[in-house]
């Protein structure tokens, strides 16, 4: 038998082995690595969407972008949008997971779970259109309700008031993203051995103490990874903002992806859009390195 396995390992199988992974590798190389490389190259050229020929221009694109006021506004908006959305999602989802964990009845648990994850299943276009309609400044449900209840004097213009637009978008994003945090934190909570809580209770630990010393250390790695994934997603999100406000009014909800879109597609300046993309990606990579060093530190503590 041993011989047979050995023979199988040598004869022809090294090729077969590669046949299994080759198509997926091709996808990664052609659809992810190649576009990255060409974006880097474009970022040093004056390429446009119209002409096929282009010349190298050195760092000019980067200099132009780093001296562009709109870029810094977009960058600031992205940071606000990411931090605001993420904090909201984590708080709402985390508390939800702890509550769900307390509920004993199976039926109740499943019912809440199904209800709570509905937003997560919404396609971006449906999120955008439903909320746009609910927030509509003429006949929308929410502004009308606020006015009928006497909370506001007139119809609140959630999406066209420059001061309200970004917080409103964040609320929508919290509505959409909290369920994912809830479900995953809840799944992580199930991995904690219950006897530790019982032991803590016998020792007279308070609810907060057992949370800090048992719950938190057990789930922080999962939560950490979730935060990484959500940060990247929210940071790069194009659909929700583009469809709800397209970055307006007057750039007050323009985030980096919208800025890149305006530059590369509307403005047709591929070179400069590429440079902005690379800057965005570099920032994300740095952020993730930071996150992962924290997570690795936790992992070491566990061992």
């Amino acid at each position: 038998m041993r011989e047979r396995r050995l023979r199988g390992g040598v004869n022809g199988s090294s090729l077969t082995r590669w046949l299994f992974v080759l198509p997926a590798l091709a996808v990664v190389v052609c659809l992810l690595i190649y576009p990255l490389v060409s974006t880097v190259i474009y970022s040093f050229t004056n390429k446009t969407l119209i002409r096929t020929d282009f010349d190298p221009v050195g760092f000019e694109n980067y200099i132009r972008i780093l001296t562009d006021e709109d870029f810094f506004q977009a960058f600031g908006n992205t940071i606000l949008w990411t931090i605001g959305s993420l904090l909201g999602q984590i708080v709402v989802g985390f508390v939800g997971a702890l509550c769900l964990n307390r509920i004993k009845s199976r039926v109740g648990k499943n019912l809440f779970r199904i209800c709570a994850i509905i937003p997560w299943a919404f396609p971006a276009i449906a999120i955008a259109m439903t909320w746009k309609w609910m927030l509509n400044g003429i006949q929308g449900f929410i502004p009308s309700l606020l006015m009928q209840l006497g909370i506001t004097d007139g119809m609140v213009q959630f999406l066209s008031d420059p001061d309200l637009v970004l917080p409103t978008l964040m609320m929508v994003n919290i509505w959409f993203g909290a369920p994912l945090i809830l479900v995953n934190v809840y799944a992580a909570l199930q991995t904690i051995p219950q006897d530790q809580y019982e032991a803590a209770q016998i020792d007279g630990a308070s609810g907060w103490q057992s949370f800090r010393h048992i719950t938190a250390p057990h789930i922080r790695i999962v939560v950490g990874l979730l935060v990484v994934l959500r940060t990247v997603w929210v940071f790069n999100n194009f659909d929700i903002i583009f469809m709800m406000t397209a970055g307006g009014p007057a750039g007050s909800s323009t985030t980096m992806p919208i800025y890149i879109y305006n530059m590369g597609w509307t403005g047709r300046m591929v070179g400069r859009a590429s440079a902005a993309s690379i800057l965005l990606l570099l920032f994300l990579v740095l952020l993730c390195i930071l996150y992962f060093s924290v997570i690795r530190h936790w992992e070491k503590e566990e061992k």
Partner: protein
Amino acid sequence: MKKIRRLSVSGGFSYLYLTILSICAVFPLLWLLVSAFKSSTEMLANPTVIFPKDWTLENFKTVLFTLNFTVNIKNSLIVALSTTVVATFISALAAYGIVRFFPKLGNVMTKILITTYMFPSIMLVIPYAVVMSTLHLTNTRIGLVLVYMSFSVPYAVWMLVGFFKTVPIGIEEAARIDGANRLQVFYKVVLPLVAPGVVSTAIYVFINAWNEFLYALLLVSSSSKTTISVAVKTLEGADILNWGSMMAASAIVVIPSIIFFCLIQSKIAGGLADGAVK
């Protein structure tokens, strides 16, 4: 005694919190659906009344027949189904290959996956547009399916690796001794064992392809080939638009997504947590 009291208090808070959360979560879906069945006069008259007095199918008729959404639904189905079949096939092969032949590659792959997850779609779409116009694939559904591999395959491989890991190697060795070759072992022995996992993965790929917006917007421009998400977005500019039709169109996009999602929700959530722990 004390313990019981504390638990009941926090239990009450839990019910209250989750009830509010559920209402907030479900309300937009409810509003979307009831708006789709309201007449435009009723919508104008009572913006805060939830249920319509007269349920009407007028909005759905407008969307499907006057605005020809059937074409867009067909396009979305073609693109999403092709993406699902191709991506699941490629990913199942790769996931099995990684688990059986390249176990060390698995760790490297997770890193690559997280790295590629960082690539903004808005960055990738420019090179895609350039390459596709050279290959004459702009404005084709095949082009769109190819591009959709970029986000389907990495995620599907990740999900499937988790499922394939649960297959004991002993079963495969037995089949090999009986004279089956590697490919036969794969599709006759291993694949049936992980079928439920493959189905969930396929559904997940389908939902993502069905929901995709950015690539469909920028890479396909002829109206006979646009997918449903893009068609809903273009409705905004149409003269014919009233919010009732818009909600009817959105309902058509949201319903398949929600049904499929509920079917597989426990699998994808568990997968993320498991993957993260290990």
